[in-house]
């Protein structure tokens, strides 16, 4: 109890952020009210602005402010490739690598049975519509290499297979700068299983 109902309500609201519990939320709300009211006003204005403007791309489901995001509306991108990622952050990571020229689809999450996240909670319907309407030659599944990412990838593979499109997965193995001695055994094992031939 802070003596102000408004602060209590602010604290409750802040708890919706990931990793913010009651104590962090209290510290944040006290800080904003005590030391940085300008900052608080800025946050409030930015939040309202973002809520109003930010939407999901009609095609690839990532965040954008128009019907189609920059990538989907670009004429330079290869429209026969689709890379499926979990989140806009993953899309960003892929873009920064600079090697991919195709389009994306952002699931906005991953399947997580223990958290009750099934296929109906991801943007899968939207992806199916895309598979039905557009012509793709290859779909690259780029989910995370965690158990949840893997089960998501398996689900997508089963879903896409009937369309007869080439499905590929990101390679897994030794990272750049990786020294075998310091790598965990599973990664080394996987790298061995997924080894590639360099000459006949």
């Amino acid at each position, binding site marked *: 109890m802070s003596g102000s109902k408004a602060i209590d309500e602010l604290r409750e609201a802040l708890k919706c952020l990931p990793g913010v519990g009651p104590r962090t939320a209290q510290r944040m709300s006290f800080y904003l009210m005590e030391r940085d009211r300008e900052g608080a006003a800025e946050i409030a204005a930015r939040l309202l602005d973002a809520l109003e403007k930010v939407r999901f791309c009609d095609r690839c489901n990532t965040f954008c402010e128009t019907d189609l995001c920059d990538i989907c509306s670009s004429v330079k991108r290869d429209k026969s490739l689709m890379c499926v990622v979990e989140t806009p952050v993953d899309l960003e990571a892929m873009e920064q690598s600079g090697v991919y020229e195709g389009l994306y689809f952002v699931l906005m999450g991953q*399947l997580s*049975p*223990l958290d*009750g996240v099934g296929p109906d909670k991801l943007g899968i319907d939207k992806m199916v519509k895309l598979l039905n309407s557009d012509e793709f030659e290859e779909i690259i599944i780029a989910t995370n290499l*965690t158990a949840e990412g893997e089960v998501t990838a*398996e689900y997508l593979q089963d879903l896409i297979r009937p369309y007869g499109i080439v499905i590929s997965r990101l390679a897994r193995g030794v990272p750049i700068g990786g020294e075998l001695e310091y790598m*965990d*055994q599973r990664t080394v094992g996987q790298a061995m299983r997924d080894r590639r031939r360099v000459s006949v």
Partner: protein
Amino acid sequence: MRVKNIPAYVLINRPFGETSWIIEVFSREYGRLALMAKGARAKKSKYRGMLQPFQPLVMSWMGRGEIPILTGAETAGGFNELVGQSMICGFYVNELIYRLLARHDPHRLLFDQYTIAMDRLQSPEELHSVLRAFEFIILRETGYELRLDCDFESGKAIQDGAHYRYVNGRGAVLFNGAPAREDVYSGYMLRALASGNTLDDKSLGQAKLLLRVQLSHLLGRHDIVSRTLYQASCRE
């Protein structure tokens, strides 16, 4: 409290801050609990590949609060590579543990069965028998054991050749009509299930139905997501 080298499995890890996870684990001596894995998500962390579901680990932790701090984790020998339907079944077993066990409630027998299940789920041909055995034991260990020793009305032993219905909370009872109904089970299946014997395909189907009905009483409204995923993986 300081705890050392306890056999345990990760059920799920959830990001906490920039570099940590809060992991939900199922341990042999302390049951299901949450642990803080500090720095486990950091780039150089050796725990990143290790603290994943389905893998047999030994863990150490310390602290009194609701979420003790993980101080060490090692593989307990070998990795379980669950792929495809095996992985979905692994998630199903984890969902049962997560939904049916309260935190800090040790279930050593169940843990040992879980260890066997995670190992055997690697063989695709064993999925159904592994799951039925695990379902039977999780019901028993959480206090909802199926009563399959005798007909609860007559007190007579279950006969291989006879057919039975199962009444929730009471047990098996002889069924005299034609065994065409779905919820009529053969005595042979009931006896095999109770004694942990291998079930043939037909019995596995019956056992699945019987166990599913019993589990649904405990799971209540919770949807089992991995069932949806399994069904999707069977389409084609």
